[in-house]
């Protein structure tokens, strides 16, 4: 695969990156990449994938330093460039698509202004032309209302839409090298394959070389020509995608390949008492119905999964239940008592019993508070715990979610993604809730870490008898954790029932489509699926039938 050109676009030789504390994050890595070629970087969180990806831009995160090696981009060694020269390279010749689009966009500026900034500032295009290209790209990526989409702010679009806007921003200058850091992790399965196909076409057509960082081997298998497996900063294994997947040489790579196995659906728990009931809930965004006529019930110790693609109203439903987004119709009752639609009018006790865990741990934790004060605050706020008792409670909670109590003094910025999500769960548990609403809690995590978090949640459920409303787009997660499933499509509930039943034989056509979009770990799956979709396109949209 390599060597299609004599001069590779990117060549990294003996690269090492160290943190301020002297920890080796990337250890003596060499790689090369030709135009139009995609190299997949695989490994669990903390393996140094992102650090290596950023190093390809000649960049080291705050506190980190590139200590050895050469980074050659089309013959120029980025390590030898001064700040001004680097600035001209970045964005123009190398572009970066970040893991968390929410953190990468400036919340105070409209999307279109941020997308057009680079080409205009680098003098590659006029504002009008850049805007026109952005609109075309919005359309190509199936974003709603492409003409006016860019006028929105980052918090006004869904996570999946923001991630696509980020890809548009990266391609705005037609760079030689594109570094994609988990670009589809936050997307639901159906959107993910569209975006993957779009990225793949884009890369092939433009001759851009790409470093594709992901923890999801099945996703990388669709797009990467070659794979490079990293663990603790070291190269474990590298080779062409098909060969590596078929015959992994090392134990670690074998574990990664084997991880994506199925698991049996969970049987329903013993009949518990109903804790949460939602009847005819409806939410409007302007004149559009974001959620209409949603009804559901959850019993103690039960997990209800809500699945659907991005924009289907899953998160809105969760926020409406918690009162963050006011519902304009319908009722939410907790243990038989009806709750006010607006969280501000709910009692402290009602707020305590219903806890929300957010999708992106990066923005769900206050970066300026210590872990101890984040986790301890609900205990202090609801139960008046303080002093040594509070410190003990924090240590206990951190232990409960499998974190070292010594982390209490740290700040969120010093933790990994998986650790941050555990802190979020610990914060929710500190309130000793009855119901935990989990909004895509594993979406931003790599599979080994996500698996640990899921196991943790199952264990907590068994220990504490918690009820979960578990929002996700990952069907594998649903099979593993949910007792019952609720499927949403365009703001409506199209199917609801026991997991095995909803996902099993005779399922709703939309569920069928969802299942068919789940990436399989073999190259070529993407093309087959897209071809099948095109063939099915004549069949028209799904009927929004009522649930069972």
């Amino acid at each position: 695969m390599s060597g299609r050109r004599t001069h590779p676009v990117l060549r990294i030789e003996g690269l090492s990156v160290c943190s301020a504390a002297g920890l080796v994050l990337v250890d003596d890595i060499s790689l090369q990449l030709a135009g139009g070629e995609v190299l997949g970087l695989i490994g669990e969180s903390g393996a140094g994938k992102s650090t290596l990806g950023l190093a390809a831009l000649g960049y080291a995160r705050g506190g980190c330093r590139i200590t050895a090696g050469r980074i050659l981009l089309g013959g120029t060694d980025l390590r030898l460039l001064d700040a001004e020269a680097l600035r001209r390279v970045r964005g123009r010749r190398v572009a970066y698509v970040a893991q968390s689009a929410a953190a990468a966009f400036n919340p105070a500026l409209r999307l279109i202004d941020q997308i057009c900034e680079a080409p205009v500032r680098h003098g590659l295009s006029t504002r009008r032309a850049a805007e026109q290209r952005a609109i075309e790209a919005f359309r190509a990526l199936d974003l709603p209302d492409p003409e006016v989409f860019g006028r929105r702010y980052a918090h006004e679009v869904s996570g999946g839409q923001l991630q696509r806007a980020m890809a548009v921003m990266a391609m705005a200058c037609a760079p030689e090298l594109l570094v994609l850091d988990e670009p589809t992790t936050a997307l639901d399965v159906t959107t993910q394959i569209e975006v993957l196909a779009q990225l793949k076409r884009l890369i092939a057509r433009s001759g851009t070389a790409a470093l594709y960082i992901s923890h999801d081997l099945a996703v990388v298998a669709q797009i990467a020509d070659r794979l490079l497996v990293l663990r603790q900063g070291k190269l474990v294994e590298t080779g062409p995608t098909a060969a590596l997947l078929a015959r992994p040489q090392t134990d670690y790579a074998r574990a990664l390949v084997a991880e994506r196995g199925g698991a049996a659906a969970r049987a329903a728990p013993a009949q518990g008492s109903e804790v949460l009931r939602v009847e005819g809930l409806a939410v409007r965004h302007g004149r559009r119905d974001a959620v209409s006529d949603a009804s559901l019930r959850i019993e103690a110790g039960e997990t209800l999964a809500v699945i659907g693609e991005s924009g289907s109203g899953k998160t809105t439903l969760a926020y409406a239940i918690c009162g963050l987004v006011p519902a304009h119709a319908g009722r939410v009752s907790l243990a038989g008592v009806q709750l006010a639609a607006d969280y501000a009018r709910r009692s402290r006790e009602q707020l305590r019993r219903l806890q929300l865990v957010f999708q992106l741990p990066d923005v769900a934790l206050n970066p300026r508070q210590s872990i101890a004060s984040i986790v301890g605050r609900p205990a202090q706020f609801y139960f008046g715990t303080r002093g040594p008792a509070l410190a003990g409670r924090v240590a206990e909670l951190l232990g409960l979610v499998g974190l070292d109590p010594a982390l209490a003094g740290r700040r969120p910025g010093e933790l990994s993604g998986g650790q941050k999500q555990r802190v979020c769960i610990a914060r929710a548990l500190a309130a000793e809730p009855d119901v935990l609403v989990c909004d895509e809690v594993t979406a931003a995590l790599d599979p080994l870490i996500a698996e640990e978090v899921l196991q943790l949640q199952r264990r907590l459920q068994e220990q504490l008898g918690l009820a979960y409303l578990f929002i996700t787009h990952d069907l594998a997660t649903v099979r593993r954790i949910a007792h019952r499933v609720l499927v949403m499509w365009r703001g409506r509930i199209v199917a609801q029932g026991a997991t095995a039943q909803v996902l099993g034989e005779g399922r709703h056509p939309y569920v069928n489509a969802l299942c068919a979009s789940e990436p399989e770990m073999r190259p070529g799956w993407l093309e087959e699926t897209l071809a099948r979709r095109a063939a099915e396109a004549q069949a028209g949209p799904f009927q929004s039938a009522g649930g069972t």
Partner: protein
Amino acid sequence: MSAGEYQQATRASVRGGGGTTPVAARSRLLSFVASGAPLVAVIVAAAVFAPWIAPYGEAQFVGGVWDPPSAQHWLGTDNLGRDMVTRLVFGARNTISIASLATALAFGLGVLLGFAAAAIGGWLDTLVSRAMEILLAIPVLISALMVLSVLGNSLPVLVVTIGLLESTRVYMIARAVARTIVVREFVAAARLRGEGLGWLLAREILPNTLGALAAEAGLRFSFIFLFIASLSFLGLGIQPPAADWGSMVRENAQAIDFGLPVPLYPAAAIAFLTIGVNRLVDRYLAAIARPGAT
């Protein structure tokens, strides 16, 4: 302030692996001096200890008009024969205390209202924002002249007037910065917990806006300081015989006609303090920009 700054400088050099070599020591000293801390410390010390430091009384006539520098009067005397060094020292005391109080008031009010407007939103935001915009539309100097000529220019009136007028600028910054914070999920988490407005403002929003506010504080202090100087220059600020750097420029302005540098001394003092404060703020911003720093 200087001790903390010094510790910070020391810590930074330890982190950077700096040993006790003469080169490292010199660069550490240079960096400390460049931080503005010594400059501000000297001026603040002069302000605090003015009665003990000053060689003469604040309004004591000790010589002729614009006597040249001598052993008794290091910077000569002013237009009424008062010792220039004494006037500068007392001027620091008067001007800095009023500027600090007015800055504190402007920040207390502007930040509180700005954060509250961003966190609560709705009609409160609209109401306060429009009111602030109306105040902003009138030049500060004009408003101040009107208020001070009606209410007289006692010190409390001066402080409150300047504080209120300047709080509009602080409000704009505080609201804009807070709006980018209130949409984050950790604020939603705190709201969902049932936290009161006080917690939201002080614990969730404030720590994440300190950088922007510190930058603004440095600038705002300098502006208020210069504003007091201009008011004094116009005769509406601190009243004679109390010394302040602005009126000292005015009183001695004519000396320039005789080729004497007298008004340049208080002008230089104003410049030094402005530079010192801004250097300090820059250093603070660099410190909090480091990952993991508080």
